[in-house]
């Protein structure tokens, strides 16, 4: 693969020094990562060809100091909204992955006018009873996250010390599997929203997808075939194509632009 177009930056917001990776030009696309922390995937590179992608590392994840301060998901969302402010992003597309999907939903509720469209990759805002983040050896975790870990060129390494650091934060912020307060608010969130689930998700049941559609007035559900929880790693081209199409055309993305002429 070509060398990454992403550059590292930092922004001070809400008393945290927050790292981010940025690449591309055009309408901003802010990404909030899953419970495993910020990892650039091939999808980030593909999305950066079309958008100005800003992928944050939320406070307490990666090499950032232990975060004992943030008490709730709405609080984390408001910290991230400030970081986005600091970068001068007035309106933006917002994408959240798993844990970060819940953060993104809260952020969209808090800053409705500023979020152009919302993309939720295997979001953790609604989970089946007993759903648990992957745990165990790196191999066991990989088997939960990826559809075919053996086919991936390289699996992002998992640092046990970092997991131990972030685990309490994730547990504290993730909230109950069904959050009645959040779900009642979602009914008023008319932001164009795309929810994606891999057909092989072994962390959050793909059947959770329909609940977002049940609740949200402007929500679209897409299943990515043969992808597991980490959709954007398992099938980056398929993931990116539908995300870009949705961000460009919102609900009109249902109209096909695929050309079928074989010869003129």
């Amino acid at each position, binding site marked *: 693969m070509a060398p990454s177009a992403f550059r590292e930056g930092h922004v001070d917001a809400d008393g945290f020094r927050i790292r981010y990776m940025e690449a591309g030009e055009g309408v901003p696309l802010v990404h909030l990562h899953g419970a495993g922390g910020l990892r650039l995937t091939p999808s980030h590179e593909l999305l950066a060809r079309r958008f100005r992608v800003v992928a944050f590392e939320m406070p307490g994840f990666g090499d950032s100091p232990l975060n004992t301060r943030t008490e709730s998901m709405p609080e984390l969302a408001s910290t991230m909204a400030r970081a986005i402010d600091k970068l001068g992003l007035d309106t933006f597309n917002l994408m959240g992955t798993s844990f970060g999907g819940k953060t993104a939903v809260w952020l969209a509720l808090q800053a409705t006018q500023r979020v152009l469209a919302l993309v939720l990759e295997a979001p953790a805002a609604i989970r089946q009873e007993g759903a648990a983040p992957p745990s165990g050896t790196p191999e066991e975790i990989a088997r939960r996250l990826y559809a075919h870990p053996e086919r991936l060129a390289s699996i992002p390494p998992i640092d046990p010390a970092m997991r131990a650091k972030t685990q309490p934060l994730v547990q504290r912020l993730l909230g109950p599997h069904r959050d009645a307060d959040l779900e009642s608010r979602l009914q008023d969130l008319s932001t164009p929203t795309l929810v994606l689930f891999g057909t092989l998700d072994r962390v959050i049941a793909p059947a959770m*997808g329909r609940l977002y559609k049940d609740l949200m007035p402007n929500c679209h559900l*897409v*299943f990515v075939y043969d992808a597991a929880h980490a959709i954007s790693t398992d099938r980056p081209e398929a*993931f990116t194509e539908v995300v870009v199409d949705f961000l460009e055309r919102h609900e009109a993305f249902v109209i096909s632009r695929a050309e079928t002429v074989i010869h003129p």
Partner: protein
Amino acid sequence: MKVSFFETARYQARQPLPSEWPVPSGIYEPDAGARAYRGMIERLEFVEELGFDWVSVSEHHYSPRILTPSPIVSAAFLAAHLKKIKIALLGPIVPQSNPVRVAEEIAMLDTMAQGRLVVGLLRGTSNESLTYDLNPAEARERTDEGMELVLKAWTEPQPFGWQGRHFRYRTISIWPRPLQQPHPPTYALGTSRESCDFAARHHLGCGVSYGSFESVGKATRYYREQCAHYGWHPSPEQIIYRANMLLADTDDEAQELLRKLPGQAPFSMRPGVREAMMTLDSRNIAGEARSPIVSGALPTTFVGSPDTVVEQVRRCRDVVGAGVLDLSLHPPGSSELEPLMRALELFGKKVLPRIRDI
């Protein structure tokens, strides 16, 4: 043991038919076609009366030997004429279909037929990849993905998009849904590891065909192992074995029928196509490579008098584990009706009552 009759429409031509596939359609006789479909209903009314549980139809193209290119049309025709018997679509060739359309048509017909449908989904025989220009190297993947999409279309309550490898739809929400909920009894048909894996993962039945008991038994054993891996155990009725049967009053007569069988491949392709197909169309039995059936005649695995056949059925149950036999009583491509009717009657009177408790 449940019993299904494999209906192939039995086209009777006035002139001998060339063996090569595709068969030129210019020699088709419209009145012979009309007779074949009328005869199908007469025969199946008898089959229903004899107590068969299902009648099955398949999808084959460009040949009079199995005159049912659209299994859904066949099934709808049968459903409208027959009252009790279940109708098994074994089945739509998934890789060359629009899976959403397959899901819609089956749901529609299941509802029209008052829930009498049984469904088998499959990759299709090697020759069929030529029918609609399907790349045989992609056939397996398209089958797996298409089957998964059919199941999703039947069961997903909200409109959804499908971002597949081979299929892409931005919004799917089928009406009607099947009468049988969540969907009709469904089988993944085939001996391959992939097909058995799929069936096990999705709690579907498994259907195998034509091989010896030992050979297809490897596939059904693998299927049962995979089901156990996914935490469930299939019932005998979830395993179908499709086979040829030559039944006669005595073993000697049946063996004589077997000797007289033309040893011809059902869909014989030109040598260059056949050879290329052998390398492009990879097939396996539970992971062990087998060559695609492109050149040889289909084996006949039940041969004999009623007593002998009953014992063979018992052995089939032990070795294959099948709870449904899908039978051609007389080679499926044959147009000889009289021996077929004799065999049907003999089977209904002397075999069927004795294999019910196997």
